[in-house]
């Protein structure tokens, strides 16, 4: 089957900068939280 972009749903809508920023925040916040927890734990090595 040939791959053609669909026009009947949101696939056809251009993605806004806000959507991209939201997407990165959505995954970035938990990642930064996890990294910060690990970093705090790692500080014990230098104390």
């Amino acid at each position: 089957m040939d791959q053609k972009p669909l026009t009947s749903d949101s696939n056809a809508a251009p993605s806004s900068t806000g959507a991209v920023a939201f997407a990165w925040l959505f995954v970035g916040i938990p990642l930064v939280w996890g990294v910060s927890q690990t970093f705090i734990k790692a500080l014990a090595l230098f104390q």
Partner: protein
Amino acid sequence: MAEASLLDRSRTVAGPGYNRWLVPPAALAIHLAIGQAYAFSVFKKPLGALISGNPDAPAPADWTPGQLGVIFSIAIVLLGLSAAIFGTWLERVGPRKAMMASALCFGGGFFIAALGVHLHSIWLVYFGYGFVGGIGLGIGYISPVSTLIKWFPDRRGVATGMAIMGFGGGAMIGSPLAVTLMDYFKAAGTGTLGVAATFLAMGLIYLLFMQFGVWTIRVPADDWKPEGYVPSNEHNALITTGNVTADNAIKTPQFWLLWVVLCMNVTAGIGVLETASPLIQESFSDGVMGAGRGVTAAAAAGFVGLLSLFNLLGRFFWSSASDKMGRKTTYAIYFGLGILLYALVPTLGAGAQLTLFVVVTCVILSMYGGGFATIPAYLSDLFGKLQVGAIHGRLLTAWSTAGVLGPVIVNYLHSNAKENGMVGAAAYQSVFYTMAGLLVVGLIANFLVRPVAEQYFEKEPAKKTAA
């Protein structure tokens, strides 16, 4: 004809104006979730005390550490097997359906394991977290790879590095999240030391979190390419414009050379990960450093955390650097520099050079992570984009093999050294020299990689598997 499901590949083809920078967060949503697997050890102590209710004094009927270790082993073996088995299916149905399958298996695995904990049935935990969850791991791990490479033909290393970095980051989220939830549910008196309720909560959290990836992911149209992008393959014979199917790829020597490359890199890295905490405590004890100046258990835990950070950073740094340096050169650095650094570790331990020891092991771990993150781009360079997800899936059996091989080698050599009366850094000497030897094998395998022979390429590339 029945209308295509929202999960079908045909419903995920991006329209004009879709921003390709939405794809890496979609991939990260999957990898950050399934990366939790590397934090499973946080459950070991409470799981081993469900009967006694006291993690420091397990009852005879409680599950043993050996029984609990099997849970993670099953999950990792299933990761490799399911990635290998479902890779071709993934290429056919597209990333959205595969991500949904991964979310259902990974979240569902937690739910089944919660029931297993509630009923105190280790077999149900094996089946839930190990078997079903492991399938979720395998499908999830490879699900965004092919799509990312198609969206970022100009930055394959950056794109796949970002996603696979998420797998490293997943453990950093999963560990404190599990501890927080277990403390909460234990205080709330839910029973099983809060483990069953935590499994249920985490299954739900990850199932929902992964939905973001499922519904954000898009595949590019067949004729799409980045604005102004001109393939520069004429400068590098190791980057093809053709395509090899997964079935043909495994018939090539290049596939098996890269299998050895990945297996050796991972096995050696596991050598450091397995021994990190006891290694630094034994090598830099009070006896070596002076009274009160030795590395404590808390500092050793900090060292393990630091290694995790470099494992994560290395995934992005090295993979991105490989876009500039080329994959073969990047792996030559992993192995060449790795041989020197692994061989140096026992000497630094014996010489009480703590700072240098930490720096060297951090660089080693960055290259361990880099090895995981660079391999999809290497495969794409050699075999093309058509079925790179499926080929990557089959290559991940090297990871499963290393996951079994690494700990066996390390434990055998270390026990043997201790039986022969060696202590401190000396007890790890044979481990690190053996790992350096494995890297020599990897270096040779990488050196032997040549462009894939014409006979393996598809005659009509690009449109063969588009469903």
